[in-house]
């Protein structure tokens, strides 16, 4: 809570110098129960992942005969070739277009709305709006897909990537507004006041003050929305039809229908569709995890 603020406020040096002097967490000793659960859980997570990975390199005829937990002696890339030749790149591009096309406006609009809600908290309109956005958290928005489908048809957007982008933005707004407004609320009032004394407009304050100070939250919300939309299945399933509009999760599902018996090929497809997010995870892990812990635990 405070770390995000102190980390980004101006007198950074003094803050950082103070940090090592803070008492260490000596009060907490070793956590044996947690540790045991931790290692057990590691096994639960790793075994399916490991199995998926090694199976994807097995030739189909070897798959049935080999020990499922031992990597094959002669790994093959045939499964991957099969998947890539099944138009994988097109689905990848579709997923990128939909994700980028939805996340950028979703975060931008949510940030502007969150700023307006925090700064305009005295206005009943703003509080009503906040309530409206929060309502989206309490109701499963997936329950509204039938009217969404109808609206998309009426807008003549059915079977287009834009059909996926628009509802994705709407579904991302409630949580984004909540997390972002929580962070904007932490910006000290004096900073806003001094900006106003200097004659800055709300628009300038928004971009020059609030945006830089809440950058970690903005990044977190961006990553979280990107993950959700990238992995989305229901909207592509009901709003598109043509094979060349499929996004990766949907392509994966149809792929399984075509190659059902060929387990190594199916799991190779699983690995391939997962690879892009895992690469991003490798780079953005720290930001994602620290952002999520801070963003949701208030």
């Amino acid at each position, binding site marked *: 809570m405070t770390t995000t603020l102190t980390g980004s406020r101006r007198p950074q040096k003094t803050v950082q110098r103070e940090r090592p002097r803070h008492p260490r967490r000596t009060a907490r000793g070793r956590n044996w129960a947690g540790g045991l*659960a931790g290692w057990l859980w590691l096994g639960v997570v790793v075994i399916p992942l490991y199995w998926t990975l090694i199976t994807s390199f097995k030739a189909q005829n070897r798959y049935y005969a080999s020990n499922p937990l031992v990597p094959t002696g002669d790994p093959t890339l045939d499964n991957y070739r099969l998947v890539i030749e099944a138009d994988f790149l097109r689905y990848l591009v579709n997923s990128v277009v939909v994700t980028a096309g939805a996340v950028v406006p979703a975060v931008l609009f949510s940030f502007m709305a969150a700023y307006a809600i925090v700064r305009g908290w005295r206005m009943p309109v703003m509080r009503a709006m906040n309530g409206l956005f*929060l309502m989206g*958290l309490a109701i499963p928005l997936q329950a509204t897909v039938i009217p969404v489908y109808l609206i998309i048809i009426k807008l003549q957007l059915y079977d287009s990537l834009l059909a996926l982008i628009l509802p994705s933005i709407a579904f991302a707004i409630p949580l984004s507004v909540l997390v972002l407004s929580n962070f904007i609320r932490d910006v000290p009032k004096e900073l806003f006041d001094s900006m106003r004394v200097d004659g800055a407009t709300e628009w300038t304050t928004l971009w020059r003050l609030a945006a830089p100070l809440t950058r970690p939250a903005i990044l977190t919300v961006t990553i979280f929305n990107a993950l959700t939309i990238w992995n989305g299945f229901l909207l592509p399933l009901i709003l598109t039809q043509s094979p060349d509009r499929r996004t990766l999760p949907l392509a994966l599902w149809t792929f399984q229908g075509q190659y059902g018996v060929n387990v190594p090929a199916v799991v190779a497809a699983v690995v391939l569709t997962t690879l892009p997010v895992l690469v991003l995870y490798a780079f953005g892990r720290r930001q994602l995890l620290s952002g999520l*812990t801070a963003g949701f635990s208030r």
Partner: protein
Amino acid sequence: MSSLTDQRRRRTPRSILPWLATPALVIYVGFAVIPLVGVFALSFTTWDGIGAIHVSGLTSWRAVLTDPGLPHALGVTFMVMVVSWLVQTPVCILLGTFMAGRQRYRALLGVVYFVPLMLSSAAIALAYKALLDPNFGLGAGLKIQVLSQDWLGRPWLAFGVVVFVVSWQFIPFHSLIYQGGVQQIPKSLYEAAQLDGAGRIRQFFSITLPQLKYTIITSSTLMVVGSLTFFDLIFVLTEGGPGDATRVLALDMYKRGFQASLMGPASAIAVILVLVGLALALMLRRLGGRDAGASQLEGA
């Protein structure tokens, strides 16, 4: 509403604020609020998804409410919700507390723990489907009898698998929430407790757990409302089967609407989903008794 904003504009220099919220509001209203109202309206119509929409009064509701499939789907939905909450919450609290500490292998564990968070439900479901195959899956391959059951072919086993896979997918996310919650507990509490001679277990039950109250409510709300939307995982993993053993409401809605072309009854199911979600969220809010949250919800 516009007259109200006009008044504000004349009175205060902050008139730009409502405009800043407008883009989000427009898309949200267009693709979430209007559909929400629309789904109520559609539940009183007959529509096959392609042709014309006819108003048909209570026909859809009558069809849905007299269908023995509804209590079953409701039951399965609640069972998945409750059992997966019971499985996930203790594990998440333990893992979260563990991750918030300074354990030696935390960094290593932390890298792997959260991988399931990145995967799509479709990918997870497909991997597990292959892994659990009674003839060629893990159990059969290792020649372990217990593991080579027809996991997805028997009602109770399939239900158990769904709960397990759901937990596998979401425990990382919720442990992360708990980790953040634990990190916000003032360290002085633990120091004081230690001076008083409280052991680790005592500290956990007397400090950590009570201090996590709001975290538990946040996590539970997300878990419970989220579990109403379990669609893709179950759709790919079991398609609601065997029989209707794992046919949750969201899946029921999809099957009636988009597979059986009965959009009216499907909308009625959706309305039920909305009401259940809203009721549960309000109940959890009440349980939390947080002033800010309560007043925020009143605005809705």
